[in-house]
């Protein structure tokens, strides 16, 4: 009785409570937009540096109808997916192998670390020569940029497995493949996912960045073109779509993670 009473009386504040973070986030976005609108209109900010948000909103229709933004978003998303998934499919096994062999691990870890830190995007001329001016170049570059964090975090996660859990496995006479799949890998999974999240961020940046640099394909190229035409509201509208695609990406990843490890 008391329980239902409490629930009933608090139904509307609990809605605010449940969506509190989202509502607060949206509200601050709206406030920021209004603030910029005001600052631009008053003339504090030059409208050729930051266009008024209302112009950006108006630019959406033009960008969608004239610039084939859906097709371009699709092209960008496709390059991202291929590069990101390939980085996981290669990075996790490579990390697992390096974890198993202390010699290779010590030999390779610094190189992989260097790969993680290297500004791969700047090596685009080399990749252009190797793969031509095609989506292949973009995918390969993004893949390499996304690879290192997954390898490093896979090694870190596997070696971070608690000793006592390994001892449980040993006391049960588990084979080394059972040990890997039933203890080491699930124990490392949260850390591996941290690596994947990092990797996917690198992949997103590289794909859009290289598209922009070599003026090819999806949203990056569109941003390049619109900027060159000094169509700032359109540029910002296109950037908004980049954000949209990334959000879609990370929601996807979150779903996979939730499915793989329901325990939180």
């Amino acid at each position, binding site marked *: 009785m008391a329980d239902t009473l409490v629930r009933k009386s608090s139904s509307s504040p609990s809605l605010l409570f449940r969506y509190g973070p989202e509502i607060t986030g949206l509200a601050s976005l709206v406030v920021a937009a209004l603030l910029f609108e005001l600052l631009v209109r008053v003339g504090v900010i030059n409208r050729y540096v930051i266009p008024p948000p209302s112009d950006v909103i108006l630019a959406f229709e033009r960008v969608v109808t004239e610039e084939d933004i859906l097709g371009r978003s699709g092209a960008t998303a496709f390059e991202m997916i291929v590069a990101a998934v390939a980085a996981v499919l290669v990075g996790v096994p490579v990390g697992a192998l390096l974890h198993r062999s202390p010699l290779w691990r010590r030999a390779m870890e610094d190189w992989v670390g260097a790969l993680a830190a290297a500004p791969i995007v700047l090596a685009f001329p080399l990749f252009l020569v190797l793969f031509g001016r095609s989506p292949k170049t973009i995918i390969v570059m993004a893949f390499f940029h996304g690879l290192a964090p997954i390898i490093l975090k896979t090694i870190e996660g596997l070696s971070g497995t608690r000793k*006592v859990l390994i*001892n*449980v496995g*040993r006391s*049960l006479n588990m084979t080394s493949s059972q040990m890997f799949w039933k*203890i080491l890998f699930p*124990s490392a999974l949260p850390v591996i996912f941290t690596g994947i999240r990092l990797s996917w961020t690198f992949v997103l940046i590289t794909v859009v960045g290289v598209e922009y640099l070599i003026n090819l394909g999806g949203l990056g190229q569109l941003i390049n073109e619109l900027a060159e035409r000094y169509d700032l509201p359109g540029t910002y509208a296109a950037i908004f779509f980049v954000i949209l695609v990334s959000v879609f990406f990370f929601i996807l990843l979150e779903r996979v993670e939730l499915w793989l*490890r329901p325990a*939180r």
Partner: protein
Amino acid sequence: MEDIRLQPAMVVDDVVKRFGRGDEIVTAVDHVSFNVAQGEFVSVIGPSGCGKSTLFNIIGGLLGDYEGSVMIGDERISAPHPAVGMVFQEESTFPWRNVIDNVAFPLELQGVAKSERMDRAHHFIDMVGLASFEKNFPSQLSGGMRQRVSIARTLVSQPKILLMDEPFAALDEQTRLLLGDKITQIQQELNQTTLLITHNLTEAVQLSDRIVVMTYRPGKVKRIVDINLKRPRTSDVVGSDAFGHYVAEIWNDLREEASRGMADSESAASRRGAHG
């Protein structure tokens, strides 16, 4: 020898284990010998740091590099023996599995069919009093509840020889007594050979047929005490005079060792204090 029961299930003979090298050598286990008969319940009791877990790991086959011998049947132990089940001192549940999947884990490895392993897991979860938490994950349980999950996970495969390293340390006194009853009951039913590592006196006397009292560093056997309390035995026994007598007797041995241990750690602390 001293014990005239059937053949010993486990013989620990002159076991020595040292860690480190050069000036830094620590003798964790020093010429320890005792045996455990088929179906017998033996406890090893001693102050913190006296080498109990080290001995536990040697007997469990997790620490293959030691001197002397631990025999199970006619096999010298240097790797885990399939007849042995272990409960660890540290928290050892799998955080990615819920309670029932944790407990069913050994059966899963043995390839037991799903419905049967769920039934058997359920039985032991019920026994440790966690029936309404089967679908919970370890992160949603208290420390003591998690320890009970690990106990159930080891019991589920009904090992002939059960090794436990301070399995009840995270439990309150009441739960400890009741769970002790359950363990005794299973142990008697299955005629399980059991070695319990503990630093809890009442727990040792409540459960054991014999108690091996260890010295503080280096860990040697100080004395082996026979506990002649009737079986079947329940936690009611803790109220009896005989029980009190045993506790007092063993405490007498233990007090000396424990205070040596305390003095040791106090002087270490003051040495650290002087440096810092």
